[in-house]
């Protein structure tokens, strides 16, 4: 091979030079070692992808923790990776709930109890059958060792009636039970977890024995890669693909085009380019919303009129056109997504009206100075707007919203200081009420209306930085309490309607728009991915529903 000889000669030459430089030092052995490496290279074959039955999914961050209830990160992708390994009682396909571990389920309003009959064929990965006892044990275990992802405050107790029926008694009516517990709570094998006292650090391999379609094989932290293998005697049939791999890639589109991965989230602008390359594009419902957090505990934001004036001042369509080139939809001020079946169409739209905004601010005693800004008692109206690189569905993105909002507020006479900070710094400032306005965003708005309680009232959303923690309006607090306990869907809908109107009126935070989240996948792997309506489990807007690999 010509190149090999040339490189060998070059190596010998440079080795001789090296030897000359350090002539008192003997380096025969170095020369020998390097030469052997040179000989080895030509005999190694080229790496190939084992096409076989394998699915590869790209993710930009890569590391989302170990896929078991206590070790996965408390974000969508973390839960999804666990969902492959641990099954829940019920699950959602494209539009509605479908049986999972439980074949049938019913709710008895008088005893406030849900009863589930389990699928007899369900087995744990170690071959033992899944019994009602396991479900009862899981409920009591989660009450003792809280699993952050679900809130067990509404559960009283659970009893296994016989081998395959279990009844869960509620301590109070809890409307989001099905979405929060039934469709989200992973069932744990009793024979493994009953001896585990400290689940957070329990990392023995048996911690990943679940009843889901895939076995957890490996997670490489630094590489950010996961490996799952199909569970042959899965009770809903052998999964379609033998292996499932998560890969980290900073440039998902590039990995898609080069065939390194089969499914990846993409930016809307990539869509038609990828379509030309023969990939299938899917678009999610509006499950994620961008909003402006307002520090309603600090003047002048304490006054709802001022907050509503801000809403009028912001031209959301310009943000959509400028910052996202139209790949977004204006959000409803009622916080719930417009695709949600409990969405109240006549929540006030606060369409862009700078004149009205100026009048409203003027009505509060602010007068326009010659510098074009509002002044009151010699103080200029000056606020600080914080923005940070938010992660939208796992994809870190820096966008122009801050700059556009700043321009719009400056136009009506408010001096704005735009400050961009690292995300965790922004989160901690919002948490400690050390801010005026902050741009942030969260998902779950197409899922269970429970999101309203979390994102408005401090009772449910104390921990989350996206929650407005607004309890000035007693009426709103009462409604939020009621909707959590209202088990009957129609009556709950009425309450949710009222909440949206009142929330829009109080305006503790301004919803801006729903970015279009899209994904693309390789059609000829004959797996069709889809976005679940209302998001996976309690509202995760990610197109990796395990149903795609089962049926």
């Amino acid at each position, binding site marked *: 091979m010509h190149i090999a000889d040339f490189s060998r000669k070059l190596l010998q030459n440079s080795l001789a030079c090296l030897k000359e430089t350090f002539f008192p030092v003997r380096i025969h052995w170095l020369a020998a070692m390097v030469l052997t490496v040179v000989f080895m290279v030509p005999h190694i*074959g*080229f790496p190939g992808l084992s096409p076989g039955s394998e699915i590869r999914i790209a993710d930009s961050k890569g590391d989302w923790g*170990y896929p078991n209830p206590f070790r996965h990160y408390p*974000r969508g992708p973390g839960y999804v990776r666990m969902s492959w390994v641990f099954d829940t009682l019920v699950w959602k396909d494209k539009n509605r709930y479908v049986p999972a571990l439980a074949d049938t389920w019913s709710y008895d309003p008088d005893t406030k109890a849900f009863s589930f009959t389990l699928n007899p064929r369900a087995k744990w990965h170690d071959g033992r059958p899944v019994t009602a006892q396991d479900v009862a044990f899981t409920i009591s275990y989660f009450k003792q060792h809280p699993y952050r992802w679900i809130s067990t405050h509404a559960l009283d107790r659970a009893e296994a009636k016989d081998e395959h029926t279990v009844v869960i008694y509620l301590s109070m009516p809890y409307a989001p039970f099905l979405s929060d517990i039934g469709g989200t709570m992973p069932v744990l094998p009793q024979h493994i977890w009953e001896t585990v006292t400290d689940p957070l650090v329990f990392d023995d391999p048996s911690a990943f024995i679940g009843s889901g379609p895939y076995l957890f094989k490996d997670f490489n*932290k630094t590489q950010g890669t996961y490996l799952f293998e199909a569970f042959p005697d899965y009770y809903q049939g052998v999964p379609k693909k033998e292996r499932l791999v998560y*890969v980290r*890639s900073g440039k998902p589109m590039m*990995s898609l085009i080069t065939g390194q991965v089969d499914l990846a989230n993409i930016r809307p602008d990539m869509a038609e380019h990828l379509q030309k390359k023969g990939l299938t594009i899917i678009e999610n419902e509006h499950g994620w919303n961008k909003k402006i957090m307002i520090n309603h505990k600090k003047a002048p934001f304490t006054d709802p009129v001022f907050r509503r004036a801000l809403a009028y001042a912001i031209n959301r369509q310009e943000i959509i056109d400028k910052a996202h080139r139209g790949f977004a939809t204006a959000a409803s001020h009622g916080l719930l997504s417009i695709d949600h079946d409990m969405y109240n169409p006549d929540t006030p739209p606060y369409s862009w009206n700078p004149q009205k905004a100026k009048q409203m601010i003027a009505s509060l005693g602010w007068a326009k100075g010659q510098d074009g800004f509002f002044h009151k008692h010699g103080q200029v109206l000056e606020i600080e707007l914080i923005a940070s690189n938010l992660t939208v569905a796992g994809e870190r993105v820096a966008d122009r919203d801050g700059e556009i909002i700043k321009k719009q507020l400056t136009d009506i006479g408010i001096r704005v200081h735009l400050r961009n900070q690292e*995300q965790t710094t922004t989160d901690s400032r919002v948490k400690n009420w050390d801010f005026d306005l902050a741009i942030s965003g969260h998902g779950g708005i197409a899922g269970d209306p429970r999101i309203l309680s979390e994102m408005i009232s401090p009772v449910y959303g*104390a921990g989350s930085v996206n929650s407005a923690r607004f309890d000035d309006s007693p009426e709103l607090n009462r409604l939020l309490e009621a909707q959590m306990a209202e088990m009957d869907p129609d009556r709950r809908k009425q309450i949710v309607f009222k909440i949206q109107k009142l929330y829009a009126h109080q305006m503790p935070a301004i919803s801006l728009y729903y970015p279009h989240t899209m994904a693309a996948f390789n059609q000829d792997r004959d797996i069709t991915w889809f976005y679940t309506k209302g998001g996976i489990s309690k509202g995760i807007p990610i197109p990796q529903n395990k149903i795609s690999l089962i049926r």
Partner: protein
Amino acid sequence: MHIWKKWLTPVLVYLSAALVMAYASFRLPTLLPGDFVTAMYAGSDVTLNAEQEASLRSFYQDTQGFPEYLHNLATLDWGYSHAFMAPVSQLFLQALPWTLLLMGTAHVLSTLLGFFLGVEAAWRRGSLMEKAGVGMMTVLEGIPEICSGVLLLLVFALSLGWFPAAGAQMAYADHTTGQWLVDVALHLTLPLATLILAYLPGNFLLARAGMVMVLESFFVVTARAKGLPPRRVRYAHAARNALLPLVTRFGLRFAFMITGALVVETIFSYPGLGTLLFNAIAMRDLPLVQGIVLFSAIMVLVANLGMEYVYTLLDPRVGHAS
């Protein structure tokens, strides 16, 4: 007494420097605003209520004071990473090989290549080849890592598709060791090329300048007079004296191994220590941050000590004080 004193002061000084570095690596991360719980849970889809949050915070609370931190340090128990739920040392050892592979080879290759090219160019001083070489290298010196990295990625990974665009190896492909080696090599080429493009020019110009200066000295004429073959004169006599500045640069650069390649690691999603540190900082995963910062501090001290020793090896005239 004199010898003992001669060696004691530097050792004492280095020890105090090590102590200061340990304190810095302990204290600085704690100054970062926000903590692990806020970073992990704040923006998440999970909403904690007040007491849940309090219990979490207490679990992740770093209660250890500096003396305790030192004690753990001594017993090589570098603490437990919050995010990864794994001992820091284990995480570290997983990421270190990749960084060593990328940065190590980049440094060694660029220094050796820079040395040979510099020596040859200086020897052919005034020839067309030398002028062209120096010209090209100066132009290369001007291109920042971020630009060359991006361009290489776009050209070779995206449009030509010769090399994989991300990662250090194809995940979970069941390769034979031979195939695995080639796969790692393929993934390594682009980031390595970027780093070499970034480091080579500096080394080349340094070697060339040093060599040009040495060639003017008399002992090179003596060497030629002794009838030694030209290559021997060039390397055993001349290049040997032009080695010192290059070694200093190698030592200094080697110390910044970790943070040095952060940009390249981000462009090529290469799983090195730099990315680990950057994510750890974002996640406010203090034990991991402290571990890595301390390791880089030790690297700097070791590099300095090593260099002092190498100085005397390379050039007997260099006194201890330099």
